């Protein structure tokens, strides 16, 4: 897959979430984008009970409709040293999490979902969706993928120009913070990078909610 940048689009004071989404859809339509189906990214969070000993560990299990056969799991380990271990597995991993439900319990009230419409314009894939946490509206996310390029550092300027053309000043002139660590600008982009960006955004929405 190509380099993907995920941005949170702030909902203006006097507008609702769906209105904001409609506005963005109108703008991308004006650029000549063609609608091509729906998308869904969901995230369920499991954490270890007190019996495990030590500080609790958290496993985020994410699905992306763009990779329908895969399950992405990100384990936040308290360490030492604290780290995040990613795992890409096939669909039956969800069954295994069910088997482990006595050890890792799902926090249902923090289940997050980004759902919306996909658009294609030349080699760009744009997804505009709303984020909900246990069916409460949380915000608007815009995902832009430039499919022919795999090195974020190579196409950031080009993508910035594209994103600014319909998102305006919401787009910063420097690459998003996710790309500025671990030499991510020069690594080959993986589906897992998209998942991690979604997780980062979900986490900040949760923080706002105070969970």
């Amino acid at each position, binding site marked *: 897959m190509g380099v993907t940048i995920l941005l949170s689009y702030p909902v203006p004071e006097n507008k609702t979430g769906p209105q904001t989404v409609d506005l963005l859809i109108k703008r991308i339509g004006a650029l000549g984008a063609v609608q091509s189906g729906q998308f869904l990214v969901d995230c369920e969070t499991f954490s270890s009970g007190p019996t495990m000993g030590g500080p609790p560990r958290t496993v985020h299990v994410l699905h992306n409709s763009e990779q329908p056969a895969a399950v992405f799991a990100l384990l936040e380990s308290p360490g030492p040293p604290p780290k995040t271990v990613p795992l890409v597995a096939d669909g039956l991993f969800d069954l295994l999490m069910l088997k482990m439900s006595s050890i890792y319990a799902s926090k249902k009230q923090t289940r997050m979902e980004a759902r919306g419409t996909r658009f294609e314009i*030349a080699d760009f894939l744009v997804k505009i969706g709303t984020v909900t946490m246990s069916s409460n509206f949380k915000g608007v996310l815009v995902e832009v993928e430039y*499919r022919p390029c795999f090195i974020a550092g190579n196409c950031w300027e080009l993508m910035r120009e594209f994103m600014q053309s319909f998102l305006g000043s919401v787009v910063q002139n420097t690459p998003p913070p996710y790309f500025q660590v671990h030499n991510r600008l020069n690594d080959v982009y993986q589906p897992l990078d998209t998942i991690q960006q979604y997780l980062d955004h979900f986490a900040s929405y949760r923080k706002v909610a105070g969970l």
Partner: protein
Amino acid sequence: MNVELDALNEALKAVSSLRSCVGNFFLSLSQGVRSEHGEDHRETKYILELQDLVAEISSNMRKVEQTCSSIPLPPDGQINLGNTAHLAHETTQDRQALYSELVGSYKWTDKLHEISNITFGFLAQNVMKRSYNSYLNSSGMNAKRRRLTPSCHNVPISSVETVITAIDRQYQDMNMNVYRPHPSNCHNLQIQVSLGRILRAVISFRGMMIEWVKVKAYNEEFQTDNGQLGQLDLWTNSRHHVFRKITENANAAMLHFYSPTLPDLAVRSFMTWLHSFRSLFTDTCRRCGNHLLCAMPPTWRDFRTLEAFHEDCKP
């Protein structure tokens, strides 16, 4: 009725055997005296042969007359021809709807003629022919050198490999792998080029002449799945608009750089041109100064200066 048909068949057979032996006679007559007739008395032998054939003709002739006379005439004096009798009917033009068809095909031919005239004029202005003769004709060189035939497709494969290795060494970020899809064919060679982490291309050579270019994304495979090692997929298009456009431009470049007298220079120039795509996603258009136009990066590179342009901005 049956008897009648049998007799008719008999008569037709007799006619065809008569025709065949008349044919034999004229064949023999046209060939004249042949070597089979030997050395001595060749003419006599030849005349005897002709006499035999004439005798055969007359016997067949008799047979035809006999069979004809044996055909019983139908009572009304006409032989029933069945459905074939209807062949001559329905000749009115209105009922055959021929007119509209004819008009259609006339229009079509007319259009074809017109379009081919335009194409001819267009092609005459833009010399894209790869044959040496027309090249020289158009530049008005003398007739003596015109007879030289292009030979760059006939270069031994080892020297092509040498040129490719030299080019490979020249560019750090451009790697080339050489494949020989048909080891028995000593002129065909394919190379797979990967340019940085931007694109991959497959280039098919006949001798020193580039025949075919296909450009794809860095992660798109050229290896075919059917397990035949060394077989590259020359046909499948890239999934991405950008690389389909570059493939088009690369084929134009391949024709532009083609030079029958200096084939290795043509290959070198083409590779230099292809190498300029290492900054495909970072270049801005020389004319409009933007990265994107119609959501596409600058996919055109000037052949001489290698400057980047959008498809619609190119000079």
